[in-house]
């Protein structure tokens, strides 16, 4: 989207307002119908000079099992940029219903460390609207730079699915070849996730999506129980990979069966070494140890 126009916001939008606005938009569209757009808004939202709150950073690091260092964890930066990403999807000219969208996958490239002391310029835009066998999907692209600098330190691509929404002119892809059935390896760790896991992550990430907060709020959204936040799970896996990843790496996760709380989650992390024994990649997969259903999988890899 080279033709994208940049809209500079004075400050990071408040997620709570965005959620309320999204609910209002959803109601309005139910009454008045969708606005009929089939294109993504060609706008990049930007906030300049964003600073992380150090108390919040420490709480985040402790929650997901990172040491409280001065380097922002890659998942923390995702949370920092998330309201801006939401604000793009919350625009009136955004063609899909924001509430109820499903986070399918996430890819992050952390090219260089970001310290909490640095002021940051954060940009977000939407891209790559395309069909999915179950609806319509798109990418939200966020970029983080040190204030006033050109070099992108962190780039995240989050792929979301609007389930059951089919826009005219966007073809459903043919049904993909079914992947081989998942066969659970021996776990390297077991996580015990309490029912408050969703609330605890909401408190440090600022993402108070009702599906994560409590059984009641989740039921109001049509779920039987509350869910662990996908980025909480992926960030814990990233923390478990450990210091071997260094300060620059790529990080991918694909989400499958949601984790209903409370839960036990089995995890396997396997390391792939390059020639000479240097760390090349750590692959991770998490599953329900009772049902054997896969919750998510991904990898953390050295940048080539």
């Amino acid at each position: 989207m080279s033709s994208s126009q940049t809209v500079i916001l004075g400050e990071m939008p408040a997620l709570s307002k965005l959620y309320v606005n999204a609910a209002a938009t959803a109601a309005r569209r139910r009454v008045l119908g969708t606005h009929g757009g089939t294109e993504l808004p060609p706008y990049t939202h930007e906030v300049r000079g964003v600073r992380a709150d150090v108390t919040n950073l420490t709480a985040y690091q402790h929650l997901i099992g990172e040491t409280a260092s001065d380097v922002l964890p890659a998942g923390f930066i995702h949370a920092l940029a998330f309201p801006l990403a939401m604000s793009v999807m919350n625009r009136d000219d955004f063609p899909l219903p924001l509430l109820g969208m499903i986070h399918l996958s996430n890819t992050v490239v952390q090219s260089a460390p970001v310290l909490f002391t640095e002021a940051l310029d954060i940009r977000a835009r939407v891209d790559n609207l395309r069909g999915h066998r179950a609806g319509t999907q798109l990418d939200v692209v966020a970029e983080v730079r040190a204030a006033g600098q050109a070099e992108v330190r962190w780039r995240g691509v989050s792929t979301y699915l609007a389930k059951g929404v089919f826009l005219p002119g966007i073809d459903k892809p043919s049904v993909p070849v079914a992947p081989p059935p998942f066969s659970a390896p021996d776990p390297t760790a077991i996580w015990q996730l309490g029912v408050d896991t969703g609330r605890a992550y909401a408190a440090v990430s600022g993402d108070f999506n009702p599906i994560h907060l409590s059984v009641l709020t989740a039921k109001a959204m049509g779920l039987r129980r509350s869910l662990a936040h996908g980025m909480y799970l992926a960030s814990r896996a990233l923390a478990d990979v450990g210091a071997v990843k260094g300060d620059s790496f790529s990080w991918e996760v694909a989400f499958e069966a949601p984790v209903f709380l409370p839960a036990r989650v089995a995890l396997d992390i396997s390391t792939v070494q390059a020639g000479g024994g240097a760390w090349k990649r750590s692959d991770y997969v998490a599953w329900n140890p009772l049902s054997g259903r896969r919750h998510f999988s991904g990898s953390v890899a050295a940048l080539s």
Partner: protein
Amino acid sequence: MSVNGQSVPGPQEPTAATQLRKAVVVGGNRIPFARTGGAYTKSSNQDMLTAALDGLIARFGLQDERIGEVAAGAVLKHSRDFNLTREAVLGSALSAETPAYDLQQACATGLETVLGLANKIKLGQIESAIAGGVDSASDAPIAVSEGLREVLLDLNRAKTVSRKLQVLSRLRPKDLAPDAPNTGEPRTGLSMGEHQALTTAQWKITREAQDELAFNSHKNLAAAYDAGFFDDLLTPYRGLSRDSNLRADTSLEKLATLKPVFGKNLGAEATMTAGNSTPLTDGASTVLLASEEWADAHDLPKLAAVVDGEAAAVDFVHGKDGLLMAPAFAVPRLLARHNLTLEDFDFFEIHEAFAGTVLSTLAAWEDEEFGRTRLGLDGAFGSIDRSKLNVNGSSLAAGHPFAATGGRIVASLAKMLHGKGQADGRPARGLVSICAAGGQGVVAILEAL
């Protein structure tokens, strides 16, 4: 010859030591020390130790390196941190195959990790080591009361509901009050400050002398920062790049206005204030030690050799000696073993738990009576050239995160010694002295390389 009532070998050639190889200080790294409730309030011991460790790893290129052994400790320690040092290693960029152990000897913890690991290097058991220490007075463990603890344990053992209810019925409101750590001595109930106030009065240390020592500590530390002395000894953390207790603009006049906080009920004049006593502090420090071969193979500097160390303890419980006076005995014993006097040193690093501690120790060494009756010498042990004392500041200015102080001092002293090189035709020599709770003290000699 007898020192402290125990007969020790007289001046001699250190026999065993000459056959051992050297253990050298390669360098150190710490995070700035923060006053409690400040910048590190939410950081745990493990966070701070890992931060100091990662700075050391970055400075000396130790990523993925399997270090011979890492030893560190904390004085205020959560029971969940039983493997604090190993967990910090696992969270650091060192090879996960680096072994580690925790050590605890109150405020001497940091120096004792240096001595223990240096000994292993001298014996050829390991080639490299990282010594360290950390403490958080902000994130201190709080235990449940003894009453609640007993109820909880019995509750866990109770099999039936009626038995469980019976156990629970023993709970009283007072049992719910938490048990916070304090600096009181278990056997006397006196805080460390009150103990030192007794010693300070006993040695007739004046308020003015204590304030002057505190003033010098701030002045020297501020000058050291301004001169860039800490540039390769320190990694910023949580927004701090200098010790937050440092008051570069303090003056003797300002210090003189402070009200006494310890020893107010002694009868004698109270002289110890918040200015000439060390505040509670959070922080961590690390020191990289190695054999000369390892340092050479890794193309790393060799700042100073860890020559020897000595621990001592005093019978403070009924007041025979002051709580923090053990170094007054440890130093004469250590120097006797090496046939050295106080005049053979170029730097003295005497930990400033309180200004009164340093001055009482120096007074004891200058006292004829103490020298004869307590040290078994012909007269006074000796006096030091004050211009060689804590020349880059010490705990009164930097703060004192208990277990982290040893690493701070050893790394700084090793750098000073290396900078000085030779003195009087011999390698520059430094003395470290650290007092500790429980009436203990650990001291050490370092020599320039």
